[in-house]
């Protein structure tokens, strides 16, 4: 595998992660600005809109994350002569550092919400007011549940990436080694 091939794969990986976060942000903002009356007036199901808008970035992110090898082959030749070859070590390091960067950026929001929520937890009943937008909605409302779901998902993805996305990187390294043949 050549260096341009690795760079292309890294860019695809970063864009894929960005798209996943975009979907989560979209779900959050959709639930926040959701108005049943508007959808009733327009005669469209909110689920249909969510699926229609969310399916394209979701499919794109899955392709970018899991078919990056094939996509990168369309752009660069992994065995192009004259280009510097990349070994498994460099591939692992590059993927881990990019994953770590993406993870740290994603973790900002969950960490700040967690730190902001600690005083609410300590003071007892205020946790409910924190989760229910200061009593504006119930705990089991779509808005509150979406907030919890998006926050938790972002936290899990952010932590996994900040720790270097070990499984994903191992798989990518294996692919890099297969492309290189017997070279580590």
């Amino acid at each position, binding site marked *: 595998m050549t260096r341009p091939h690795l760079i292309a794969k890294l860019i695809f990986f970063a864009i894929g992660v960005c798209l996943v976060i975009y979907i989560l942000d979209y779900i959050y903002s959709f639930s926040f600005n959701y108005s049943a009356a508007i959808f009733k007036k327009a005669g469209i199901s909110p689920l249909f809109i969510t699926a229609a808008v969310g399916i394209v970035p979701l499919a794109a992110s899955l392709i970018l994350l899991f078919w990056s090898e094939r996509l990168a082959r369309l752009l660069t030749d992994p065995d192009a002569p004259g280009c510097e070859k990349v070994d498994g070590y460099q591939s692992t*390091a*590059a993927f881990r*550092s990019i994953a770590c*960067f993406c993870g740290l*950026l994603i973790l900002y929001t969950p960490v700040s919400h967690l730190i*902001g929520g600690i005083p609410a937890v300590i003071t007892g009943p205020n946790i409910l007011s924190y989760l229910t937008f200061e009593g504006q909605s119930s705990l089991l409302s779509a808005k509150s549940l979406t907030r919890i779901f998006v926050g938790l998902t972002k936290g899990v993805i952010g932590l996994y990436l900040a720790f270097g996305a070990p499984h994903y990187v*191992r798989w990518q390294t294996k692919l890099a*080694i297969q492309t290189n043949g017997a070279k580590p």
Partner: protein
Amino acid sequence: MSKNELKVIARIVLIGTGLYVILQSSLSVLFSLPLMLVSHNGVDAMAITAIIIFILLALAAVYFVVRLAGCSSEKIVIHDSTDDTQISWLAVAFRLVCVTAGIIYLYRTIFGFIPMLSLYIQAILDNEMPARYQHIGPEFAKFIVMLAISFYLACGAPGFVRWQVKRTLKQCNKSIEQQPEWH
């Protein structure tokens, strides 16, 4: 990769991050410009002076970012005692990642707190304290903790970088052990 190449990469990344932060702050000021002009009932001498001062400040910030990136890149690419170039390259990469993330954390923390603080001060001056500003203590505590995390990352997060380098080397060695035909 040589030390000079690493320094150039570090400088480019730091300048890019600095310019991103300046651009984002400039955009937020520019977006609030119409509101400022409306509150001043049109363009007056004070508004023009404020805009000129802002442009000068932004230019000064760009100059300092370029100058600071040079000094910071020297500190990021420190000479390691180990002769293994791969290990030092790895440490530099993770350090650079942490410093960049730290700068973005700092920007988001400070720019997230300033509007709240200004509204709080305005509320004190007007003697009209809205309910959401009566509990600024937890918000201030959150600001301090986030600021501490941001500084830790901006300083290169030595513990985290050490752990990441160790884990990456372990992962590489494991991959090599799983492929005996390499040797």
